[in-house]
């Protein structure tokens, strides 16, 4: 009905602030931002308010029933403002959860988990998959746990970590590596960026001794840096080679140059 699913005035700080208030009053709020590129006006409400609500009030108040959804990632022609992957900005913020699905089946289960989770969640939806991905999705509700990475394919020589659209890229890379180099890759979809599943990734790197992390977002300060830093702390003696990050360049996301910008399979390979 129109009182449950509705338009608001065009104001991201208002959308998120309003959503926080709905959650504080005890109702479930799902706030949609049209593109993740436009989430920044709401940064204050997300980082200073939503993330800190429970902590600062001594658990007297919380906005755990808030979920923010936004289309995320490159789409072929989105350029600077319809292609961004801003998860790194928010990963630095204790108190929120960040979740990114790779497929329709994953999206439903992870989104339902975010909605039910008692903490404010940001759910980034790879927009290129809206029309490209087709999958049999059960009609009844189901949950996929948060903060649990998924090993899509086991391997012994190198661990590949990605999330969202990029998971499909590294899957292809794993196939290429096996066929052309005889290299056995362990492919991991991180799924939840914050809090992230250090155990699954570290366990894998202890086994393989090599790690490659890939994301569309720019290299410097991208979430691969956090993973790389933690893994070298925990798995230093097991590493056979430096950890590799294959990411977008440190430029705004270009329009005409997109095919050269993105960390495609050839760069990962």
């Amino acid at each position, binding site marked *: 009905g129109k*009182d449950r699913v509705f338009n*608001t005035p065009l104001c991201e700080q208002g959308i998120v602030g*309003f959503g926080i*208030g709905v959650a504080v*009053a005890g109702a479930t709020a799902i706030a949609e931002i049209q593109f993740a590129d436009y989430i920044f006006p709401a940064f204050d409400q997300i980082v200073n308010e939503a993330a800190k609500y429970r902590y600062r009030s001594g658990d007297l108040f919380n906005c755990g029933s808030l979920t923010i959804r936004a289309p995320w990632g490159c789409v072929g022609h989105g350029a600077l403002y319809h292609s961004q992957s801003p998860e790194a900005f928010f990963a630095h913020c204790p108190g929120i959860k960040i979740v990114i699905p790779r497929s329709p089946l994953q999206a439903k289960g992870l989104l339902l988990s975010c909605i039910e989770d008692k*903490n404010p969640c940001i759910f980034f939806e790879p927009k290129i998959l809206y029309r490209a991905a087709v999958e049999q999705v059960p009609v009844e509700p189901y949950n996929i746990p948060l903060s649990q990475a998924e090993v899509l394919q086991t391997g012994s020589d190198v661990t590949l970590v990605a999330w969202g659209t990029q998971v499909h890229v590294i899957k292809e890379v794993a196939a290429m590596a096996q066929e052309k180099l005889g290299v056995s890759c362990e492919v991991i979809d991180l799924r939840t960026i914050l*809090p992230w599943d250090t155990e699954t990734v570290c366990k894998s790197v202890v086994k393989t001794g090599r790690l490659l992390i890939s994301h569309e977002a720019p290299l410097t300060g991208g979430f691969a840096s956090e993973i790389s830093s933690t893994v070298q702390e925990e798995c230093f003696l097991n590493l056979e080679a430096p950890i590799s990050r294959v990411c977008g360049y440190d430029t705004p996301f270009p329009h005409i140059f997109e095919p050269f910008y993105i960390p495609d399979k050839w760069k990962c390979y």
Partner: protein
Amino acid sequence: MAAMAALRALRLRLPRSPGPGPARRLSTAQEFPSPEEKPQFPGASADFADRLEFIQPNVISGIPVYRVMDRQGHIVNPAEDPQLPKELVLKLYKTMTLLNTMDRILYESQRQGRISFYMTNYGEEGTHVGSAAALDDTDLVFGQYRETGVLMYRGYPLDLFMAQCYGNASDTGKGRQMPVHYGCRDRHFVTISSPLATQIPQAVGAAYAIKRADANRAVICYFGEGAASEGDAHAGFNFAATLECPIIFFCRNNGYAISTPTSEQYRGDGIAARGPGYGLMSIRVDGNDVFAVYNATKEARRRAVAENQPFLIEAMTYRIGHHSTSDDSSAYRSVDEVNYWDKQDHPISRLRHYMLGRGWWDEQEEKGWRKSSRKMVMEAFEQAERKPKPSLQLLFSDVYQEMPPHLRRQRAALEQHLQHYGEHYPLEHFEK
């Protein structure tokens, strides 16, 4: 004049549906396209004008200030006297004066290095108790940081005010925030946060949820005239109007945002004049007149809930104290100005004059109350000083509802660190 006609045309709205229910969209009564020579734009429903004329922002003769009492506590228009019973008026007076006493003692305690920070409410006590008294106990309050009297009116004990300021083990906020960042779930007072105006769109969302729950509750959202310049204020006003929320926006216009006077904060006619621009019912009141604040809030509350529409109250007042213990306002305003408000137009004095006039108070009662209220505050103060600080475990909890593995590890790391270097930390003040 064309300007007034244009303004009148702006106020032409369809009546709102009474009672809770789904949000209604504005629908046009005529068919589209209409054969009449009227503008057909979806964005505005006004007539054509064929003379070029700009609307003058009406700063000189702005929105009038509603008051019930004059500065000597006499009722100006008997028809507007809320005729509050003696018991309630005494509660208003005692809350304001108790707050004033607590403010003095806690301000001093910061000066003495006992607490880290404090903000007084001098001069604005009337805005707190006048509005608080007009609400239902369960109405949800979102504040900014200078609304302590609202929480005090609702019965929040001195012990807990002190506990929060000292950050001791009794603080229900678990020692996480700076002093004066109070919160109380049971008394429906949402915990204060430092960023300005962030509470405004949140209050609107809460009001929307409350409307859907059909709860006969209102939301009140307090903020200063400085915070009203923030984008979040604009967002909140617009959302409240379009989504038809039962909320009272209460602006304390106290003349200063730290050192920024109102002349540098806005050029329009204060905050009340912005209301109609958003489609909000708006009023300006004398914030130092407890009865005026009460009447406006009472009526706004009644209609906000009955009609599901927002109300904007701009309470004019004066910040007699410094912005906080980190401020010295003599750097930007004259002592004479401050003294005028302290001596000639203070909410506490004006109510006292009224009470004296009614024979409800006298010098002896005043003396007795000053003594006993000060004693209460000192007792709470002394026992707050003696209490230990909360357990270090509370540094790590409530970031999420559950404790994630990485925080468990970090907590363990601190414990280990303290085993070796604990002597360099004030551990003896903290509960185990």
